[in-house]
């Protein structure tokens, strides 16, 4: 016990390999250098600030992509009066990566108020990224007032009617899910029956050795239900993914980095490129956290994911803008 590593599981009350108290230790602001590493399992996770210490060979893979999230274009309150500048800084970081990512994933809250000019700005800024393809899922801020019609026309053309979709890249199966529509009073994020049925069919014929990456805005695990940080019917979705040896779930919404491993599934949430939010329960509400201007970029970020075929490992790197 004396040599126990800081983030080792020590309270496995449900005998399922999860330490529900301890996993919060893995949670960290990007930039503080705290991270979780799974060796010989599914996921390798590196902090960008530690890339210099890493063997560059370990960071190379057959597929790499970058996750960005929660740009909240249009937000202009003291927590970050210039969200366009911090999104641009994220793009600069992306463009500086030694291995250019093949594409970007944006896990929602592209805009703050679903305004056309907000969507325009994000698309414009992302055009300067080295990766030209951007795959989106909507956040609740992107589907205000029009049930997501505008979002769908801009970012989800050719997908299912509800906006969910899947695609293959170099043997990895990616699934973009929508869990911000038809939210019920008192409830959490929702996928809905139709989407779940689609998901079941979508993955049914895949070999169990296929690496799966699922991305959606609201976390697909119960991060902090008291603040709505979870998805009602995510357990059903994850049940369809049980047969796969490697499942990675990427979410946004909570504006901070968290990681959790549950069996074959590794969960990650990404930082916002706009403003940070408090740790679960550590503030009266999940509203924007005001940090001194010089610290802001240390709590915003991008996630760089590197897939190494053969080892079935995904390296997730959450990098700060500082």
């Amino acid at each position, binding site marked *: 016990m004396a040599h126990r590593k800081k983030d080792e599981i020590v309270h496995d009350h449900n005998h399922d390999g999860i330490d529900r108290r301890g996993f919060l230790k893995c949670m960290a602001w990007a930039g503080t250098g705290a991270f979780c590493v799974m060796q010989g399992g599914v996921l390798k996770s590196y902090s960008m600030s530690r890339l210099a210490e890493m063997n560059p060979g370990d960071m190379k893979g057959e597929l790499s992509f970058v996750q960005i999230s929660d740009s909240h274009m249009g937000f202009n309150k003291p927590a970050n009066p210039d969200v366009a500048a911090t999104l641009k800084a994220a793009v600069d970081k992306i463009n500086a990566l030694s291995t250019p990512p093949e594409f970007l994933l944006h896990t929602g809250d592209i805009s703050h108020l679903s305004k056309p000019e907000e969507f325009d700005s994000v698309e414009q800024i992302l055009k300067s990224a080295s990766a030209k393809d951007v795959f989106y899922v909507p956040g609740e*801020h992107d589907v205000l007032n029009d049930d997501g019609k505008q979002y769908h026309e801009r970012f989800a053309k050719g997908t299912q009617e509800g906006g969910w979709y899947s695609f293959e890249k170099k043997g990895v199966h990616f699934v973009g899910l929508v869990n911000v529509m038809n939210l019920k*009073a008192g409830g959490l994020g929702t996928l809905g029956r139709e989407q779940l049925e689609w998901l079941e069919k979508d993955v049914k014929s895949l070999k169990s050795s296929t690496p799966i990456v699922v991305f959606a805005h609201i976390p697909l695990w119960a991060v902090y239900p008291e603040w*709505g940080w979870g998805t009602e019917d995510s357990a059903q979705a994850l049940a369809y993914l049980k047969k796969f040896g490697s499942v990675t779930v990427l979410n946004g919404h909570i504006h901070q980095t968290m990681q959790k491993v549950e069996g074959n599934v590794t969960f990650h949430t990404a930082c916002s490129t706009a403003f940070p939010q408090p740790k679960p329960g550590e503030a009266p509400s999940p509203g924007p956290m005001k940090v001194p201007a010089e610290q802001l970029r240390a709590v915003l970020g991008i996630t760089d994911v590197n897939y190494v075929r053969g080892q079935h490992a995904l390296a997730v790197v959450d990098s700060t803008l500082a």
Partner: protein
Amino acid sequence: MRRSVFVASLMAMAVIGLGGIVGEHKSFVASAQEKTASTAEVKIDNFVFGPAAITVPAGTTVTWINRDDIPHTVVSTDKVFKSKVLDTDEKFSFTFTKPGEYPYFCSIHPKMTGKVVVQ
């Protein structure tokens, strides 16, 4: 030229002053008739509707005002009323004519719930 600017600013002050008086008058009326108030206000602060439950007589216009840095909505669970998204300091009003219970929530943050009881 100088004179017209002076006159214009005097007029502007007069308008502002008038606005202030009207505002004060309204709130005076509301507090004077508290038991049969025809208006009521619910503040959205820190992701909470305050007060979360209010009881008002039929005919009352309830106004919600968003004091958060984050947008919210006011949506009736039974689809009786639905606001557009309210950014910081934006308001939404609805007049309740029929007695009954009207539960509502923020459709963006559904953990936020409230209730209007109309007597």
